[in-house]
């Protein structure tokens, strides 16, 4: 079993750092699935007991890593599957935030236990030579027999999808609305209107977003769809986002779920699913 990846582009390093920082805000543990071409991260794969939503990120390895080597434990296996503390991984990568990083290496190795070692070569102001900062993030290797419980989730089939140009107002709004009501109803129409409704004993709050970009409409449905979701989960998702790219696509699978998608770049995508709740 071998894994080694090298990053050199400061932009990608910062993006990866932002992605991991987002995941670290959402859950204590994260799953890392290393494939030959892609790297996936999943948090809250078990949705039962948490107030945070299921979120996963898929990264095309060739985009981020000029050097990327993955050898599974056995020749017939396609992946290496690991779990680790998302806070530790976040802290190990936080060195990439400041800039002045020449390169960052990730590698899987065994010290006293298996670790993803993050080695950053950092330029300092006090010296011409780079400093080496090393973090050993302890990981648990998931045996192939357990892989079926750690699969990359599938994007649900929405009836309707709209795209929101800016998350700024929506983020603050949802954060406040979670205090009004435990559930939020998202009502979307293909005419580009999205209403977020929160109802409490004392008040009803209806927030309206107009002139949104229609993205998708399934052929056999009418032009409207709505779904109620847990407001804490919604708020946790929006509150955790650390990405600079704030364009969001919101898909509604009536009665089932809301699918949120952020395209960081073409082959780097963050997804979340908010399951429906009784309003």
């Amino acid at each position: 079993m071998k894994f080694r990846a090298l990053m050199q582009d400061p932009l990608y390093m910062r993006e990866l750092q932002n992605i991991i920082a987002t995941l670290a805000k959402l859950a204590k543990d994260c799953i890392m699935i290393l494939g030959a071409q892609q790297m996936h991260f999943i948090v809250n794969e078990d949705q039962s007991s948490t107030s945070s939503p299921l979120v996963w990120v898929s990264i095309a390895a060739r985009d981020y890593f000029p050097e990327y080597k993955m050898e599974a434990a056995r020749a017939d296996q396609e992946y290496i599957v690991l779990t680790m503390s998302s806070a530790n991984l976040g802290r190990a990568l936080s060195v990439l935030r400041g800039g002045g990083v020449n390169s960052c290496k990730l590698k899987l190795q065994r010290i006293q236990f298996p670790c993803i070692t993050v080695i950053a070569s950092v330029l300092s102001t006090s010296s011409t030579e780079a400093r080496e900062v090393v973090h050993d993030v302890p990981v648990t290797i998931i045996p192939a027999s357990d892989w079926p419980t750690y699969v990359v989730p599938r994007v649900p089939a929405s009836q309707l999808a709209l795209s929101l140009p800016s998350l700024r107002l929506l983020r603050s709004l949802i954060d406040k609305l979670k205090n009004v009501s435990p559930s939020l109803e998202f009502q979307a129409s293909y005419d580009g209107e999205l209403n977020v409704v929160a109802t409490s004993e004392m008040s009803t709050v209806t927030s309206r977003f107009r002139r949104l970009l229609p993205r998708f409409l399934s052929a056999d449905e009418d032009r409207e769809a709505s779904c109620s979701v847990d407001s804490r989960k919604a708020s946790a998702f929006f509150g955790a986002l650390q990405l600079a790219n704030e364009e969001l696509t919101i898909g509604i699978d009536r009665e089932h779920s809301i699918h949120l998608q952020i395209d960081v770049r073409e082959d780097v995508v963050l997804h979340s699913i908010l399951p429906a709740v009784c309003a």
Partner: protein
Amino acid sequence: MEDHLEDYKFVSRLDHVKTFNAAIKSICFNDYAMLQVSDEGLRITVEQGRSIQATLFMPPAAFTEFHVQDFQSFGLKMNALSECLNLFGTADCSVRMLYKDQGDPLKIILYPYDDEDVSTECAIKTMDSEEPIEYDLNLKDSDLNTIFVRGPNLSKIFHELEKSAEEFEFITSPDRPHFKITTIGIMQAVFSVEVAKTSPMMMMFNCPQTLVARYKSQQIRLTNKAMQAATKVSIKTNTLGLLELHLVMQGEGQEEIFVQFYVVPLLNGID
């Protein structure tokens, strides 16, 4: 979706939510509020027990638009109102307030300036109104000590008062210390702060007699948020020790919102 405006007994508009929001937040120390609207303006009163009362007052001039039929009065949940005004956080919004008739909700609609495609409408349930307590502090009374202070300076002083103290003692006096607050009930230490009447933060100082009174620190701290938002504060107190803080908050459009606190002194604190 929009009703006709003439159906409403109270219609008003504010260009900027910020100061109104700050003023509402600053008196949000109890959940039930009494709201009264008349030709004189809008008045919202919050009380806690019988020892502290806060009233927010906005004259019609503070609004861009203000129409009212007769005298309207109802009760509502302060938290619901504050939550609504705060929905867009720090983003600047204009606000419209609408009220049809007894039993109908108070409607508040926020329009953020930086995205004209976004708006939020809140319908807050209203309840039967109660009558606020009348605290009479006769302004013509000769035994009244009055101080006008610049808000930010006074806010800083209040803010720095030791938080672990149980009581604060206020002294206002024609002689030194002209204005002094002492914290009481801290282990191993006593803190006090005094401001000379000649201090540049004093806009007016008229204290014909020495008055000493003690207040619950927790009640004085309820005025902190209002103090932070105030540009000017008048402090008035009489021989009974009843304390009136009258604060002026200035909006972006120079409109003025007033918040008035009455704080009842502790019995043992009266000289």
